[in-house]
């Protein structure tokens, strides 16, 4: 999970942390049930105050993406992204099949776009 924070951005740092986690969960870098980095460790890594990280994690909790538990830290909620993982696997299968048939990425995109109509 890659955190890139721009202190000059109009978006506050805690919101940037929440956005980084959200992106990582959507991409599957973090699995449901997995723990996010400890707030203290992450704050030290990024040179931030621990409260900034905790505020980012609290925002994620309010969105229902993570659970905050005493002693266990922030854990990605099961079910919050369950269908995504399945969909990702299906997309991977489709891409593999397309490769086997010699279908280019562009042709596959076009096929998916057609299905959406």
């Amino acid at each position, binding site marked *: 999970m890659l955190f890139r924070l*721009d202190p000059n951005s109009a978006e506050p740092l805690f919101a940037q942390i929440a956005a980084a986690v959200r992106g990582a969960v959507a991409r599957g870098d973090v699995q449901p049930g997995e723990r996010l980095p400890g707030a203290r460790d992450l704050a030290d890594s*990024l040179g931030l105050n621990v409260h900034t990280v905790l505020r980012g994690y609290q925002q994620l909790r309010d969105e229902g993406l993570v659970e905050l538990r005493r002693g266990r830290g922030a854990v990605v909620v099961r079910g919050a992204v369950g269908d995504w993982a399945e969909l990702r696997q299906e997309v991977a299968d489709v891409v593999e099949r397309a490769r086997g048939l010699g279908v280019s990425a562009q042709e596959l995109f076009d096929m998916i776009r057609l299905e959406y109509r």
Partner: protein
Amino acid sequence: MTEAAPTAGDARPVVRIVVAVAVLPLVVAAAGAALVWSRRDALPAEVAIHWGVDGAADGFASPGVVVAMVAGFGVVFAAAGLWLSLAGPADPLLVRVLAVTTTGVTGFVTVLATWLVTDQRGLADAAEAEAGASRFLGSFAAGVLLAAVAAWTVPRWSAERGEPAPGDVPRLGVAPGERVAWTRSVATGSGPAAVLVAGVGVTVAAGVLSRQWWMLGVGAALGVVAAVMFSITVTVDRHGLTLRSRLGRPRMHIPLGEVERATVVDVRPLRHFGGYGYRIAAFGPLRGASGYVLRGGSGLLVERRGGRRTVVVVDDAATAAGLLNTLAERAR
């Protein structure tokens, strides 16, 4: 001149490598065998060579067989050490590990066997022979001492290693002022995890069934090792590379100033590292690299100042390597 010339490493000190991994164990084993042979007339015709857990001798052999066993042990270890250290490009860390293992183990076994057998001179019946803890501890100390001599015999040199093509060293663009950190956890693959859990279970069950309670201690120790090895967190940030176990310790840290370069490598646990866990590679392109191999696949390889190489198998190693290279260059 665009061709990347391989870095000219020091010539590997073949003589001292051979002395440390092969000559030392051979000399130790030969001395032990010669000592037993010279005392053979004063020994019982059949000497005790094995003791049961109750302390009574339960295995016997002639002194000639003991001589052959001690010498054979030394020859096998020396040959294995020689083969492993000279079969491929010699890596200083790998050679040191091999030297310590061959000389240390041969030293321990030779001293213990020689000591226990020569203790039996003048005995009418070898069944009365004793194997005291002092002999065991003394032999262990001798093994450690010999291992230290072997380690000291292996000099430090920089291994001959090709410079990777510039395209193989990933970079991650980081804007000035941007704060960046990468972190990822790695869990042991289900196969090795099952083996670990089964190992703990079998040890505990065997201990309970045979009423060898000390085996419960071994089982507990294995359990702790399993817990520590089960999952680690890999972090790349402004401090460098940090590996933490789930329990927080052991922890391994490589500061940015020590990072020469980071690349992505394909890791084959069984073929190159001989298993899973904290390992050193004896075979393949990663020979001499050590680190956490909890499963196979792509991993992060960090070449450190002074020639050591650290490897950790982790998803998305390309991002980790890119960020580590960028941060290390910036720190220079």
